[in-house]
């Protein structure tokens, strides 16, 4: 493997092989990839050649799952939390998948609540954190507008234009403040400290909270 570009190419090939074998349930022939890539994949211990067909080794399967998992988690992150458009998501996710460390991966996965499917509806392979934390760790960051009555959360950050954010800040809805959702219909009613506030969806959408 020579440099990052090469690594990316290998990982992409591995991803395609895995998706084809596991999701579309189709055999993959050696001729679909360049000889260089096949050679490198074999020497890394990721695949075996069985005649014309490619078989994934355990090690290769593991690696592929990881890359796909990262890609789809990245999609979720960019799409849900950052609200990026479709094309941007795809582009960025493709870069993301090759650079995320294990810690970051777990953090993102936990943050998003161990999502089971990507925004396109495909399964996200489960990671260690998903299996371990499935029961007690739920998704952490929610928009205020996504919370249900009775839920408590802590304000984490505010994403809004100047007009909305200055309003939110002026009344003291600062990051770190604990809130309790009282109602979500017809307007949102929340409790901060000992005061209740009513706010509309636009403002509730701008407040990102950590749910307890």
């Amino acid at each position, binding site marked *: 493997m020579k440099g990052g570009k090469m690594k990316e190419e290998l990982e992409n090939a591995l991803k395609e092989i895995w998706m084809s074998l596991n999701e579309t349930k189709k055999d993959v022939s050696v001729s679909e990839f360049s000889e260089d890539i096949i050679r490198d994949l074999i020497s890394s211990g990721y695949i075996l050649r069985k005649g014309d067909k490619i078989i994934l080794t355990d090690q290769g399967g593991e690696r592929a799952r990881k890359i796909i998992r990262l890609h789809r988690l990245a999609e979720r992150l960019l799409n849900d939390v950052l609200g990026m458009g479709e094309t941007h998501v795809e582009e960025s996710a493709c870069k993301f998948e090759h650079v995320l460390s294990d810690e970051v991966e777990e953090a993102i996965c936990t943050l998003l609540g161990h999502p089971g499917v990507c925004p396109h509806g495909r399964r996200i392979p489960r990671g260690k954190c998903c299996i371990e934390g499935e029961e007690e760790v739920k998704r952490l960051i929610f928009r205020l507008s996504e919370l249900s009555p009775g839920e408590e959360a802590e304000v984490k950050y505010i994403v809004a234009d100047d007009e909305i954010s200055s309003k939110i800040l002026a*009344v*003291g809805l600062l990051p770190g403040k604990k809130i309790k959702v009282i*109602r979500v219909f017809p*307007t949102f*009613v929340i409790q*901060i*400290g000992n005061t209740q506030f*009513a*706010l*509309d969806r636009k403002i509730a959408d701008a407040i990102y909270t950590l749910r307890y």
Partner: protein
Amino acid sequence: MHCHSNEHEEIKKIKAGSKKIILVGSPNVGKSLLFHNLTGKYATVSNYPGTTVDITTGKIKELDAMLIDTPGMYSLLAITEEERVAKKILLENADVVVHVMDAKNIERMLPFTIQLIEAGFKTILVLNAMDEAERLGLEIDVSLLSRRLGIPVVKTIATQKKGISELKKILKDILDERYRFEKRDLIKINTFLGNFMIRITEMLEKEYPISKKMLSILALAGDKDTLELLKNERKYNEIVELINSVKSGMATSPSYEIFLQIQKNANQILEGVVSEKRIEKGSLRDKITDLSTNPYISFPMAILSLYMIYLFAGVLGAQILVDYIETSYEIYINEPLNSFLYEHVPNYWLRELIGGEYGVVTLGIRYAIAIIFPIVTTFFIAFSILEDSGYLPRLAALLDVAFKKIGLSGRSVIPLLLGLGCGTMATIVTRTLESKKERIIATLMLAVGIPCSAQLGVMLGIVPDFRALLIWLGIISGVLILIGTAASKVIPGSSPLFFMELPPLRIPNAGNVFYKTLARLEWYFKEVMPIFVLISVVIWIGRITTVFDLVVEMLSVPSVAIGLPKEGGLILLYGFFRRDYGAAGLYDLISQGILSYSQTVIAMVTLTLFVPCVAQFSMMCKERGLKTGVAIFVIAISLAFSVGYLTGILLNYVGYT
């Protein structure tokens, strides 16, 4: 709410007066009640945010000082028009600043105290509504807090007049310069913004009413008024450039980071000051408070509260009381007066000025006292009860989604509902709305279709049957929805945001309700009586010169065109002077049995939609500008006649004649 025309007088008084003490604080923390406790003067108090739209001044006799009540503000960084008004007063006049806060929300409100202290004001912190805080299990170490802030801190319960004498004593000490304020460095900005703050502070060369540190903080946070204030600085351009470069280098806004820092400073100060005992919740009041925002409960509650207003103003006021007072007035004043005049005043026109059909006493004062007074009084009582209970913000929250469809936010429910009392008063209160767009739409709706209490009362009194009431209600609401929808499309600007504090529900205090009703009535009568008398005189002059007959003749043309009798013109002319006056005229006409079923409905619709009264019209022009005012006026006239005309056709078509 205070008579707007007095604002200049108030400002003059402020300029001329002795030492000035200014009350500041966020909405609904008890500033106005405290004002009353300190001065004995009544500023309208209510349990909803944004009642004080004008400044109120009063004298504290013992101290020979002037007390100024300001509209609610959350911080020195002004966002709404009200806050800007408050800030302006603060910057120009303060000798002492009293920051009133709701004790239970000390954590959220202390950042503003810190800003005031850092700005260099002689500040007193008043922790009000201590009873509510204690009920929640909150304990506040006042002397520790006072030491940390370097200013006096006082606990009060304004509703029970507790802590007022202590507050007065401290105020006296400060005015006599016996109290020593300790200088503290309370705002510590630890991020890189701190360096910029220092750099801007160093660039300021002129003298200002507040500290340069606070000015540079406000400038960094992007406060427009502050930048305006710094315009004359030699290094103004350099400062602006610096601020812009800070902004462009940040993912979040500087104001966000600064607020965060100040809040952190506040939290540190409060460490060890506030302790909270766990207290079991679930009292009956908590439950009712909780239910009051539940849509399934609060929709019926909303209808119930409107029904309460109807019972008060519509039944008790417009029917029972009006009947009684009207009849008595007729028997004990009109008849004796007329026979007296007939015997002793030979001159016909002189007689007509006072008595007769249109005289000052027989028409003007009769309308004001016998018809308008009972209706308006009962409406204001009902409104004050609703207001003090804390229910109105909940109604606002409930209706927000629906109001968004017509370009308004739930906040508008307060001026619109008040408009059912007096459109002029309500037009002033539209100032509490945040966007210009929302203010225009609310003003338009108030002018066109929200009947004032006198009108409403008379309408309810004359409506022939329930079906007619529904037709009238349907047409008026239809028109309101239509113009709201159209206006929200035509008027530029983004749709409004809704954000409102919901105060705890309180059982209205009878004394408060009484005083508040009294204050509103006083305002109303100062405004109304002269106009009623004036109208009688104008009509009198008009009759002598025959101009009056000419205008009535002219107005009777469209009046006849939409299916009303000729006398309709007269009513419309009255309505032009004051809507309630016109409504009262309509009342007269009905009692004479001149109008048929369909004519009554047409008259009700037309008069409701007809132009606002002189007072409201002038207020519209004052608040929204002449152009907007006149435009609304024209819209109202054309709507009144065209909808009136269509109503006639509709009634004819369905056969309700």
